[in-house]
């Protein structure tokens, strides 16, 4: 008798960006069946507050935001849930910024602007597909 494949785990995703257009774009464009968008936030401070309630598994995170930037936000959310998978989605295209984000604990970096395919490839890679 062959083993029944284990259903793949559903993952709860949060989108953090100060641009409403960008939040809606990411939500609309992401096609991964394993990902369910459970919340959005407009800056790092808002993200930390909502993160405590939602405890998402995956997070897309802008860096340049008012109130609290993305790098600081990474440090806060990792203290709340150390295994959250974080994809930084930022226009800051210098290598040093990407390296800093990864060193702080982010798991991936996608540079704006991006196509739908690039977003979905980055999310798939983030969750190990």
């Amino acid at each position: 008798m062959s083993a029944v494949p284990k259903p793949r785990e559903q993952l709860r995703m949060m989108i953090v960006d100060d641009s409403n257009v960008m939040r809606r774009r990411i939500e609309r464009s992401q096609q991964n069946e394993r990902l369910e968008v459970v919340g959005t936030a407009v800056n790092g401070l808002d993200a930390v507050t909502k993160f405590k309630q939602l405890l998402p598994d995956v997070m897309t995170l802008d860096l340049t935001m008012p109130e609290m930037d993305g790098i600081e936000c990474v440090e806060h959310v990792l203290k709340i849930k150390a295994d959250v998978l974080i994809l930084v989605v930022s226009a800051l295209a210098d290598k040093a910024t990407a390296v800093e984000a990864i060193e702080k604990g982010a798991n991936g970096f996608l540079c704006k602007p991006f196509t739908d395919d690039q977003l979905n490839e980055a999310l798939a890679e983030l969750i190990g597909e």
Partner: protein
Amino acid sequence: MLDAEEVRTFVQGTVHFFETATGHAATVGSPYLCIDKSAVVQDYAGVIGISGNREGKVYFTAPRGMLSVMLMCMNETDTGEQNVRDLVGEVANTISGNARRDFGRNFIISTPTICDRTNAATAAATTGRSFVIPINWRSYAANVVVCLQ
């Protein structure tokens, strides 16, 4: 003051933005030095303050019709005032942020300030000389304006 190579950074960033984000290529006219700054402010402007190893401003200014069509090309159904303002800031933010690939991480960009016809000329005015990069996208004309010390 910008040199030709630095202007090229913003030209390439602008071309890349339109092609990638909207799926429609933009053509860029010859950049020129601006004397009459009010002449390059359109319906909306997204203004980014620059600090760190350079000081100044970068702004993207466009007519409302163009911003609405850009939203539609990005499959955004809500082309209302809030999203139009949001988009003009996001374009300015993206072009400025991408410039760090060449200018380095000490080219520090602010979050965008959004202006409309009531205050755009004041908010976008710069103290130094500005380079204007004319953009033609579909049937619309817009500008990226770069003023860096």
